């Protein structure tokens, strides 16, 4: 058991460590915050925004229905 523990510890010692990547961080930031940033935000959030609007409209439908009925009635 003691030998097994020593073997495990020594294998951990021999394993190459994972390092952060300081040189790639500026490249990552450049890849995110570029000219397409606002467009990408809008595109990524679009389906969620549609779902949120749909759910809220359904929840408040009782309050919204008279407003829509009046709007359509006037036109």
């Amino acid at each position, binding site marked *: 058991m003691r030998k097994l523990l020593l073997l495990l510890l020594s294998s951990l010692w021999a394993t190459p460590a994972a390092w952060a990547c300081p040189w790639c961080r500026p490249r990552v930031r450049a890849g995110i915050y570029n000219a397409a940033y606002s467009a990408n935000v809008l595109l*990524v959030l679009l389906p969620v925004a549609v*779902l949120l609007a*749909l759910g809220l409209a*359904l*929840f408040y439908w009782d309050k919204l229905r008279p407003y829509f009925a009046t709007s359509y009635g006037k036109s």
Partner: protein
Amino acid sequence: MANPNVSATRRTPLVAAGILLGAGLGGFVDGIVLHQILQWHNMLSGQLPPDTLVRAKVNMYWDGLFHAAVWVLTAVGLALLWAATGRADVPHSGRTLVGGLLLGWGLFNVIEGIIDHEILGLHHVYEYTPNHLPADLGFLAFGLLLLLAGWALVRAGRRD
């Protein structure tokens, strides 16, 4: 406190809360299972393939933004559920709520599948194949199944 003289007949607020909660949780299933565990796609992997560490980390950022958005969806759904359960005219129907959850998950698959996969091409369900259509259609078909199951449960909940 619920007023016993008011009949609990308005199920729409409960269905709406279920839809938002289901859509948020469905978004987490997509993000956790397909983005992180199986690594079939990332948020922008259709435009920026994650074939280098830098590109993978850029995709990770957009995955994070997506997760933040579905977290908001889930939180709003929870707030609406709290508001709905406090109303005397909203029935305490488990089938209606679970039906709403399935409707929300199904709507997430269909809306995200149509907008992101088919119209915008931000990513596809399974990127590691030249033909993306079968997996994309499978994702949409699963969404439609969820919608049907949710609709059936909501209808069954009318008797609750």
